[in-house]
């Protein structure tokens, strides 16, 4: 068994990054995720593992530092919260276009605009549908516990390097700030060997020069690049979908929720079953790739689906696409940092699905 600790979600991300052999972190403070850079600073990562830590002058600078460091094959990350992630979008688009592996953590807060520092899930569209310009996808992981905040750091780096694609951990202020028991994985050493086929570390005599760019001025070349990116995204959809199913075996009504909302729905499932209503929960752990097939399959079993989000309804669109009109799909959500209770969620299930 790994080391057990009581940690904040944000701290778990930082500790996991060090243990995953992360080479560099570049970031800019923003609530509610500043504990990540503070924890790394307190750990003196340059002494502990040699990991570079730099507080940049802006989120824009930070994501471009990630672009540079990732170009050399290093395992690099940044973190921010919603307004800061908006600022990073140009850089994220370049990173996706240049096919660089990296980790971006978004501890989501309420918006739009400066919004609120309270938890939210209103950045689902931004994270899963592109966010920046151009046809690209991030690998998006949605932790629902402090344990997953730690575990998904390692998973995100593995997937990012497997596909040479940026990966995002889409968390929120609730999981970032809450403290839970976490079992930390054993540290892995930082990488010292680099895949010379694409990294820029200086052109040696035995290979052609390597170029990191997202520029394809000729239309045919640009289209080909887009087609190759799509192949990668399709492969992710086929191989990397991850979900958790809770009490789904005999469920007649289904909650679909991720992250913080899933925690609330899990309790609502228990409350419903105590009343004799057979509900279950399907929790996507990957938001891209989205568990379309898994939800479609459940649509053949249950009578209706309630999607619960801390937003005005975003993931529900993907759930409806998966269900494709087969059964009723309704939405319940709160915004701006308002958190629904399990009773509130169950009431919505009864009103919108069971009685509706």
């Amino acid at each position, binding site marked *: 068994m790994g080391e057990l600790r009581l940690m904040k979600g944000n701290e778990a991300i930082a500790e996991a990054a060090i243990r995953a052999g992360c*080479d*560099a972190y*570049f970031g800019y403070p923003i609530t509610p995720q500043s504990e990540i850079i503070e924890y790394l600073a307190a750990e003196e990562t340059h002494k502990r593992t040699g990991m*570079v830590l*730099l507080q*940049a*002058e*802006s989120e*824009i*600078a*930070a994501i*471009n*530092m*990630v*672009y*540079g*460091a*990732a*170009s*050399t094959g*290093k395992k*690099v990350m940044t973190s921010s919260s919603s307004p800061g992630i908006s600022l990073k979008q*140009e*850089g994220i688009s*370049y990173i996706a276009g*240049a096919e660089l592996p990296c980790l971006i953590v978004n501890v989501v807060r309420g918006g739009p605009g400066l919004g609120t520092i309270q938890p939210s899930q209103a950045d689902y569209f931004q994270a899963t549908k592109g966010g920046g310009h151009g046809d690209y996808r991030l690998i998006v992981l949605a932790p629902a516990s402090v344990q997953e905040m730690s575990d998904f750091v390692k998973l995100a780096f593995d997937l990012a390097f497997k596909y040479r694609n940026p990966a995002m951990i889409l968390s929120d202020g609730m999981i970032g700030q809450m403290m839970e028991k976490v079992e930390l994985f054993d540290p892995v050493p930082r990488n010292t060997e680099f895949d010379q086929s694409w990294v*820029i*570390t*200086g*052109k*040696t*005599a035995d290979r052609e*020069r*390597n*170029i*990191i*760019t*997202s*520029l394809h001025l000729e239309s045919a070349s640009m289209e080909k690049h887009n087609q190759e990116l799509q192949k990668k995204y399709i492969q992710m959809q086929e191989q990397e979908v991850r979900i958790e199913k809770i009490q789904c075996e005999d469920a007649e009504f289904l909650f679909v929720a991720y992250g913080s909302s899933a925690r609330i729905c899990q309790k609502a499932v228990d409350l419903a079953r105590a009343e004799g209503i057979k509900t279950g929960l399907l929790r996507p752990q990957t938001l891209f790739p989205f568990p379309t097939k898994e939800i479609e399959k459940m649509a053949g079993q249950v009578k209706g689906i309630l999607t619960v989000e801390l937003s005005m309804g975003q993931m529900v669109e993907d759930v409806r696409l998966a269900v494709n009109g087969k059964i009723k799909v309704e939405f319940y959500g709160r915004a701006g940092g308002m958190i629904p209770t399990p009773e509130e969620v169950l009431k919505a299930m009864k009103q919108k699905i069971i009685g509706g």
Partner: protein
Amino acid sequence: MEIKDIIKEENLVYSKTKLLTDTTLTYCPGCGHGVAHRLLMEVIEEMNIREDTIGISPVGCSVFAYDFMDIDMAQAAHGRAPAVATGIKRCWPDKFVFTYQGDGDLAAIGTAETIHACNRGENFTIIFINNGIYGMTGGQMAPTTLPGMKSSTTPFGRDVSLMGNPIKITELVAQLPGTYFVSRQAVHKPANVRKAKKAIRTAFEVQQQKKGLSFVEIVSNCNSNWKMTPIQSNQWMEENMFPYYPIGDIKIEGKLIKTN
């Protein structure tokens, strides 16, 4: 002695460095970019550091610098080259890293990245090409466009009461403690080319010594957008750009040079 007797391998004293590819430069005839590219590659060749050198190209006319420089390179978002270089250099402190940026890239959209990389004393080299105009997008006003100078967005000349004054960003970064060597040069005449090369060499040696940021501005022409012949543009540059952007070293070994 016949010409054919002179043209022999053993008598060759100057030819294009092999660190430039054979791809024809996409720059306009007479553009200073070509000379600046060549000087950079000559310095890297002479210092024998290609295996440890990483370059960053900007957005602007020189976005395709990686097509011409036969070294490992990354292409940066508009203005972000100093941040990209910071990411690389922090991870690889023993490598040589340079950015190659124009005036719009470095002194307008990328001002924050420029100032903060300089202020932190990041140990890389910035090559700054200042031709007082946006070249690639077709001759719009740059932060460095001179007062009264015409551009496609200041067709009647830059009115400083509306557009502000041209920014002397090189003097500005020289004030920051993180810069160790700051110089302004030109590449339009043989003597200038030789001095510019010396400045670039010094800049890379500063990296070798890990002394901090080295910054070389090259005041250059944009004859196409200035709507002049190459020769006329160089003359106009001497008469108009040099009084505002005087040529010479600004900071050596971390100390500002006193000027009158």
